């Protein structure tokens, strides 16, 4: 069931709503972000080709140089990280270590996908689970309190921000410990821009970023989360091991249906137990609902609007993803599990 769009003005070209902070519309009902994108669109094809060359060069430089693995994949089991991992394995022949952060809400179908794909691609896999009381308190806190700065919440819900923050820390920490030169993410083209698609990480910026994350949480929770972050001694000890982050979907062709079809040929199955914006997480619908209630716009709307604008997603499909009510059963499932 879609919410009543007649009462909500949305951009005639993408899908951003009038409730999105800072948005303006011109007399044709097109938002300022779409108008700005017109200037960039002409340069996009050349830029994508340039980034593919840059990745080719980077991989030629680092492949087979590290002791065990060329890349660590932040692997959720969803379609984007599954496809990214497949691409890196099959196109580049990388030695990959996949790391999954089990947040206690990964769907059973997704866990099967993870096992199936890592087996099929001959990829080693680490499953990292934090104790349930820590996960419960982390997600309860982010669901009920405004702990992150407002700009952070323009791109993702507070719950997703907390979860992804731990994922980023865990993969970087593991890369440093195991001397892995590449950290791969499956960000969709709407989630992260091409400009950051190949990025050398850096000790001082990482330290500052981690400190900002620690400061966001209440002190007791921050203390319990500390062991998942980068230990202070690592910044000097492993200063020469800071890896390159890559998210190739920003510059490879992206078509959701084609990706699903290609993955399904490996035995991966699109989960039927997740919401429309996730192919792995049973917490996502609740996270979206909390964000909608507190901020008045869907936490995925920026990502999906970008994809519509870039032409990698049909506008009607985008509207369906964003303006469909959250599945009440899934929202209740997470709320009850979190004891809220």
């Amino acid at each position, binding site marked *: 069931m879609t919410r009543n769009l007649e009462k909500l003005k949305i951009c005639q070209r993408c899908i951003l709503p009038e409730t999105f*902070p*800072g948005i303006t519309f011109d007399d044709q009902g097109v938002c300022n972000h779409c108008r700005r994108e017109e200037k960039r669109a002409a340069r996009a094809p050349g830029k994508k080709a340039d980034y593919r060359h840059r990745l080719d060069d980077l991989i030629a430089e680092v492949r087979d140089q590290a002791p065990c693995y060329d890349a660590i994949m932040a692997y959720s089991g969803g379609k984007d990280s599954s496809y990214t991992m497949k691409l890196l394995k099959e196109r580049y022949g990388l030695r990959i270590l996949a790391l999954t952060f089990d947040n206690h809400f990964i769907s059973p179908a997704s866990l099967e996908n993870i096992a199936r794909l890592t087996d099929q691609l001959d990829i080693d896999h680490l499953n990292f689970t934090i104790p349930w009381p820590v996960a419960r308190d982390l997600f309860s806190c982010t669901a009920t309190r405004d702990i992150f700065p407002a700009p952070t919440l323009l791109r993702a819900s507070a719950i997703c921000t907390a979860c992804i923050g731990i994922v980023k820390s865990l993969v970087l920490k593991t890369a440093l410990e195991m001397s892995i030169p590449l950290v791969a993410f499956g960000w969709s083209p709407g989630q992260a821009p091409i400009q*950051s698609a190949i990025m050398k990480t850096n000790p001082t*910026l990482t330290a*500052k970023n981690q400190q900002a994350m620690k400061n966001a949480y209440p002190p007791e929770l921050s203390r319990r989360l500390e062991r998942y972050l980068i230990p202070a001694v690592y910044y000097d000890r492993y200063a020469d091991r800071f890896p390159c982050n890559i998210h190739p979907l920003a510059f490879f062709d992206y078509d959701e249906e084609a990706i699903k079809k290609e993955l399904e040929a490996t035995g991966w199955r699109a989960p039927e137990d997740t919401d429309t914006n996730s192919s792995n997480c049973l917490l996502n619908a609740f996270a979206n609902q909390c964000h909608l209630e507190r901020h008045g716009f869907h936490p995925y709307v920026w990502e999906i609007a970008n994809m519509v604008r870039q032409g990698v997603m049909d506008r009607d499909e985008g509207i369906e993803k964003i303006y469909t009510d959250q599945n009440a059963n899934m929202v209740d499932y997470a709320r009850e599990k979190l004891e809220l």
Partner: protein
Amino acid sequence: MSLSTTDIKAKIRDFIVENFLFGSADELADDTSFLDGGIIDSTGVLELVEFLEEEFSVTIDDEELIPENLDSINCVTAFLEKKL
């Protein structure tokens, strides 16, 4: 033609507001920390660097990617003025 400090600040501000605050400039003072304020993360810094390299025709080395150079409009402006 050399750019004034005011011009440089304005260009940086416009970029941050458009790309990270999506047009909403209420919380951005010249000395607001991008990282502490949740405005950009360590990944977003690279987007900023690419913009600076293109817009101001400078080259920024990996060792210059430190908060002292890139963590606020004032920091970036001072850093750029040294390079221009």
